[in-house]
């Protein structure tokens, strides 16, 4: 309860380089619903779940300070997402276990801890990946004409035969093939841009 949206906002405003702003925004769009849902699934109340999101953002922004001070720092985005994953897993765990553990000093500890590769974190990764696909789909959808998008959705997601989709959309079967591949390529690009190129493969 100690932290407030204040911290979250001002840290963002202060820490983030303008060039990294986009990465941050994406990070929050993807992570906030993810963390929130994970927390609710674990029985957190709404307010506690919201707090947890904040904790993750806060711990992550603290890490950014240290990252920015590093002379050998690499690309911001992959780093950010890796850190966020660790923080999320560890925070969720810690909060679930120790309702009475206190203090911001925990944030630092949470950061350094590497999450164990167990069933739980694999599940979390799956949820994350799912969230990422949904987010990317939402982002790129507007770039396509409705028919193009539908061609992808009907065949790629709902599993319709291209012939069937072609009829429904009144386009040629070949055009359906092109359309669905175009959308898929964009989806992949979008996700890779966030993730670095090797995660989903």
């Amino acid at each position, binding site marked *: 309860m100690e932290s407030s*949206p204040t911290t979250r906002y001002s840290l963002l405003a202060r820490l983030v380089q303008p060039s990294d702003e986009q990465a941050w*925004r994406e990070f929050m769009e993807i992570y906030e619903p993810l963390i929130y849902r994970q927390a609710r699934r674990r029985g957190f109340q*709404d307010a506690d779940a919201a707090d947890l999101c904040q904790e993750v953002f806060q711990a992550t922004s603290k890490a950014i300070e240290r990252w920015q001070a590093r002379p050998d720092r690499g690309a911001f985005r992959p780093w950010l997402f890796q850190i966020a994953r660790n923080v999320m897993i560890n925070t969720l765990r810690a909060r679930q276990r120790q*309702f009475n553990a206190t203090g911001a000093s925990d944030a630092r500890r949470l950061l350094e801890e590497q999450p164990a590769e167990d069933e739980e974190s694999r599940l979390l990764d799956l*949820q994350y990946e799912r969230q990422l696909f949904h987010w990317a789909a939402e982002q790129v959808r507007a770039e396509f004409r409705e028919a193009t998008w539908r061609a992808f959705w009907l065949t790629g997601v709902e599993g319709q035969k291209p012939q069937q989709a072609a009829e429904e959309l009144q386009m040629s*079967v070949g055009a359906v093939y*092109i359309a669905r591949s175009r959308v898929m390529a964009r989806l992949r690009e979008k996700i890779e841009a966030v993730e670095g190129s090797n995660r989903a493969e």
Partner: protein
Amino acid sequence: MVSPRFSCDLARLKLALDDRLRDEAHHELASHLEQCDECRTQLESLAAGREWWRKAQSHLATRTNDDVTRDAFAADSRAAQQPLGRLPWLGFLAPSDDAAFLGRLGPYQVSDVIGAGGFGVVLKAFDPALNRFVAVKVLAPHLAASGAARRRFAREAQAAAAVVHDHVVAIHAVAENDGLPYLVMPYIAGCSLQERLDRQGPLELKELLRIGMQVAAGLAAAHAQGLVHRDVKPANILLENGVERVKITDFGLARTIDDASQTQSGVVAGTPQYMAPEQARGEPADHRSDLFSLGSVLYAMATGRSPFRAETFLGVWRRLCEDTPRPIRETNPDIPAWFAEIVETLHAKRPAERFQSAGELADLLERHLAHLQHPDRSPRPARPRRAKRRRTRRMLGRALLAAAPALVGLVIAVYAWPAKDPDNEKTKSDQREQVAAALPVQPATIDDEPHARIADWNYFDSELAQAKREIAEVERQFQRPAAGATVPLAISAEAVDAEAEAVARRWDEGMP
């Protein structure tokens, strides 16, 4: 097969993916694809590997919130999505002509975000008319959506504007832009007392007297105008750079948030850590509520931490209403007894037992400061006479429930400790940790205080279900003690139904 081999052209497939084929080439490729399996496969793997296609299908076909109870999630999703911390949040700014600024609000050129709170965002802006920097506080759009909150914001801001005092942040203007009300204040370079405490911990006695005295004087000026602050806390006390001057900010704004939360679900008012108990109980606040909060601020300056701390909103709430904070001198022995006594008086649960005016307190602090600085010239002030104090009885769950039936739905208390401990203290504490780690509900401290969780009335059903699960889990733990347990454990858990004001279920196992 009419498809000639030369149509199979990798470069053309790439162009197609980028949507860079002209219409006729596009048609040509489309009809080629209908016949050429090879090119189809090629195109699809150019777009993305097989694994990508598989994942896209399995992920996108699954709704992301399917794994959360739909109703519960739907009810809260609006609150969760409240984009308090997102950058697009500055969307209400008009573009600025000058690229050096983030945007424009009315006549003000916004250069920076200073901070944000429950009520909205604070911007640093340039006032071209007066050629100076100002701080602009904008009511959050989700609050501005409530007419009551908007009107209150404007009214409180105007009331605060009437207070002219050295230790109160002046309000230059109250205005509205596109339905978003904002107020304009001088830009104060410096930090808040909260930031100072976070950085430096407890303050020196002289300094904390100086700050406390100025805050009390500022409050006295506002109280004289009939204005109650309602949210006195270190974050609302600004320390100006360079000069040792303190300014109180955010008069009356706490009420704006109250108004909005009555009309819109999902708006959570801030932490009650510095509230007075009567405020926490939803009773009317008066100037003596500010004095209670000032007591908490003095306490925080002396010890580096707020007096009523707990992990949860409810924990704080319970402590506020029931507990006496840990004595200041236990944390910081350098603090004299008379100071601790002043804070204790301010912390009286009953307003009538506190100081009765901020002016009286400011005066007392000033005389103590004078005595500290010139012991020979200024006598040490006598102890003020107070209304006779009733000893605050520590109340337990039931009484607490009775105090706020509207807020409270359910209390779960879990006690766990090794029963009949043999003489080995080390084993005992190890054991406690093991038990603590194994329990789904964490006892606040295993020795005495139960972990109590109080649910909002609206969550009664889901909370009750959750409680049942947790208590069942405790039962299971009891039957199957934590690995390595060598000492029999005692666990006691109870679920209190507040509506019936009765213990709904209870376990006492292995109790002496």
